[in-house]
């Protein structure tokens, strides 16, 4: 674990893996809740957690080294189920990358249990880990990906909260509302939430 100063009020804590980043994020939330430190933002990402709005970053950085960070618990609760029509335009490409039949893609994807590792790109856009396989991004991004599209990129699965440009490989679509600022919580997929995708019949 390495703590890098970011200006005078933030720390970027770098760890060795995505799993460690998720575990550290959970531990930081727990310790902030006890009042051990204050921060306006705790932002997990691929291999880091950013703490912003700290009073004394160097003091916290000094204490981090002695922390015991427990692994992320595999809790049974808190599973969000997202119903998906696996009929995306990139199913054939993904199947080719994996060397499987096209209808196997849905089976493989729906068998995994995901966890929201972090959010970014757009409000409510979660980067979900848990899929045992990877695919590269599309060589040419699409200028408009419809809201509700379920896509893959690298080790991540994501669901587009609204229509936007995007380079992920689209394997399906959902009617689930990923982001609604009038709802509490506004984001369906928040860091730490576990997710399962449920295949729906053909349209």
């Amino acid at each position, binding site marked *: 674990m390495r703590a*890098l*100063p*970011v*200006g*005078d*009020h*933030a720390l*970027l804590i770098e760890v060795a893996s995505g799993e460690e980043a998720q575990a550290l994020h959970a531990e930081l939330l727990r310790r902030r809740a006890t009042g051990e430190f204050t921060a*306006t*933002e*705790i*932002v*997990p*990402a*691929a*291999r*880091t*957690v*950013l703490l*912003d*709005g*700290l*009073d*004394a*970053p*160097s003091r916290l950085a000094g204490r981090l080294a002695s922390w015991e960070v427990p692994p992320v618990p595999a809790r049974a609760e808190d599973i969000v189920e997202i119903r998906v029509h696996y009929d995306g335009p990139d199913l054939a490409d993904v199947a080719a990358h994996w060397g499987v039949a096209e209808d196997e893609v849905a089976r493989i994807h729906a068998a995994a249990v995901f966890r929201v590792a*972090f*959010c*970014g*790109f*757009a*409000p*409510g*856009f979660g*980067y979900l880990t848990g899929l045992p396989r990877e695919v590269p991004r599309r060589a040419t991004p699409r200028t408009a990906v419809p809201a509700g599209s379920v896509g893959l990129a690298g080790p991540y699965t994501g669901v587009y909260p*609204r229509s936007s440009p995007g380079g992920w490989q689209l394997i399906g679509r959902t009617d689930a509302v990923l982001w609604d*600022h009038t709802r509490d919580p*506004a*984001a369906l997929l*928040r*860091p730490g939430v576990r997710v399962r995708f449920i295949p729906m019949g053909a349209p």
Partner: protein
Amino acid sequence: MTDGALVVVRAGALTTVQDRGRPGHAHLGVPRSGVLDAPAAALVNRLVGNHADAAVLETTLNGCSVRPRSTVTVAVGGAPCPVTVDGRPAAWGAALRVPGGALLDLGPVRSGVRGYLAVSGGVAVEPVLGSRSTDLLSGLGPAPLTDGTVLPLGPPAAPRARVDVVPHPAPPAALVLRVTRGPRDDWFTAAALRTFTSHPYTVSAASNRIGLRTEGPALERAVAGELPSEGMVLGGVQVPPDGRPVVFLADHPTTGGYPVIAVVHPADLPAAAQAAPGTPVRFVAVRHQG
């Protein structure tokens, strides 16, 4: 319903509703947003007796015109500009009574970029995640104003502040930005680090509320490839593949994959928001305090 309203007659190049933004939601991918020149916005709010959280209008280069439906107190600040009420010259940087139905015009800026208009009661559009700010990156908050937009106003809060003369820093002829190194300064060559804090850059016309873009020598990377996505802060100086530093402003993305070479001191960001395209920029290295 009995509170006032403001009719936008001329929206200008880019006029948005802004308050102090919506920090605390970056983990959901929500930018902080909010006024770019916070001291200027705080001052105009104070002049009309508003709470510091009240929403103001932030204009860009060529001002805007509005018509209040009932009599209001307003104040114009930020980038200096001519102010008129029904065509007659009026004070900039001071509280001003505008009768209901009169046309208040903020003209083109004389210097700087962003003007601020506070109206007694504040702009009372529906808040989103606790803020009325327009976020141009994510689309949260009200859309940028267009001609004909009607903005609701809140109830005037308090008797207005008795301030006769207001200090207003002139927008900078040259921008000096103090920076602390890192977190990803080790992704750049020693020569690039020297260039960054010794060679003058200029403000690019491609700058916006997301970032102050610069033109100048490209900063060469010592590490190839892309950084796994990581959290970004206000004032972070990100270096995209073209090598020209970008200073993140209020609507910056919450995560990114290009390395951040340094972070600008927060006290220098209001001046960055007022630096017009072509303004020389110098990055000056200072040590971490904290």
